[in-house]
């Protein structure tokens, strides 16, 4: 028996949806294991698997980071392409597919912002379906700042030293203020995480529970949207005002 099969046997019992109910290789019946009990071939994970389920975590936002790491490494040991270098093409492809899904799931859940965005997509179909009111004041502020930024960029280092210095100081102050604001938004996002995690389960009063869920999801989406605007302008400010500065602007983002 190969090493990774033993690993699995000693691990905690798991019950992930697999892509097929039959072993792709020997056609014997499967009940959700990673390896066929008869021919010991690795089996493909279902593409429909959501990332929380994939990493054996509840659909919560303040997640147990240690459990996330541990499960990720344990599963990686089952599927990593290095273990399949000498296997046939079918097994190699499955190892690659499972590992890719696992890596994406891990990366997404590890980052709090991506985790929240992913949860909103899962729960609300698409984050775009949640309409949040556009932050008009923020837009005005961004447009104004961008105009100062344009002017600053257009002044080459040699000329208009005074105006350049004046703008630089203003932009640096704005950058600090915006970074503080972004940190504040991230705090508020964390509060929404706790609200989400404290929501009662599905069983009690479906309609009321859904309304509560929607309220938290909308609240999170609003913070996330505004954070994206602030993050963009902060990045622009950093790129323009940092000493290294004058980095080529990227039109491909």
């Amino acid at each position, binding site marked *: 028996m190969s090493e990774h099969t033993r690993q699995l046997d000693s691990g905690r019992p798991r019950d992930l949806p697999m892509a097929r109910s039959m072993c792709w290789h020997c056609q014997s019946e499967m009940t959700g294991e990673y390896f066929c009990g008869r021919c010991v071939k690795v089996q493909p994970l279902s593409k429909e698997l959501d990332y929380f389920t994939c990493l054996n975590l509840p659909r919560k936002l303040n997640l147990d980071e240690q459990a996330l790491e541990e499960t990720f490494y344990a599963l990686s040991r089952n599927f990593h392409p290095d273990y399949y270098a000498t296997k046939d093409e079918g097994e190699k492809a499955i190892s690659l597919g499972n590992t890719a899904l696992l890596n994406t799931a891990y990366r997404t859940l590890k980052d709090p912002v991506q985790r929240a965005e992913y949860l909103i997509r899962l729960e609300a179909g698409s*984050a*775009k379906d949640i309409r*949040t009111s*556009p*932050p*008009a004041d923020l*837009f*005005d502020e*961004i*447009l104004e700042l*961008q*105009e100062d930024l344009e002017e600053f960029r257009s002044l080459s280092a040699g000329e208009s030293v005074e105006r350049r210095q004046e703008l630089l100081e203003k932009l640096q102050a704005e950058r600090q203020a915006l970074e503080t604001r972004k940190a504040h938004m991230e705090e508020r996002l964390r509060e929404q995480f706790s609200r989400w995690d404290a929501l009662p389960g599905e069983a009690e009063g479906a309609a009321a529970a859904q309304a509560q869920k929607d309220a938290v999801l909308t609240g999170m*989406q609003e913070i*996330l*949207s*505004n954070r*994206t*605007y602030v*993050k*963009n*302008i902060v990045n*622009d400010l950093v790129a323009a005002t940092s000493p290294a500065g004058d980095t080529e602007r990227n*039109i*491909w*983002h």
Partner: protein
Amino acid sequence: MAYSEKVIDHYNNPRNMGSFKKDEDGVGTGIVGAPECGDVMKLQIKVEKDTIVDAKFKTFGCGSAIASSSLATEWLKGKTVDEAGRIKNTEIVQELNLPPVKIHCSVLAEDAIKAALNDYKKKGETEGQAEEVATPV
């Protein structure tokens, strides 16, 4: 992925970049943003006798967002307010040959047009000189 030549042309030579004073007579201003990418777009129209005589934009975002709004201002000029309201993002996608991941940029431009038209109509109402206000969008 490469941008179409038309996108690059609008990016390098944006048409009608700039702005009008918001409170100027006949000016409608639309400011919209795309929460997915953080782009912000400002589009303004200047209307005389129900016809858009001038349009300007300022967009901070990717090449496709700039090209979409630049193209939108070109199309807006000479159109009546009603005609302008019928510009669809799909026409922008077609003209600029936008790839699927950049379709939201064209949606942003359509939203900006609608917002500018609404702002223009709203201003007309409060000044009590609105002729027939078109059905709300």
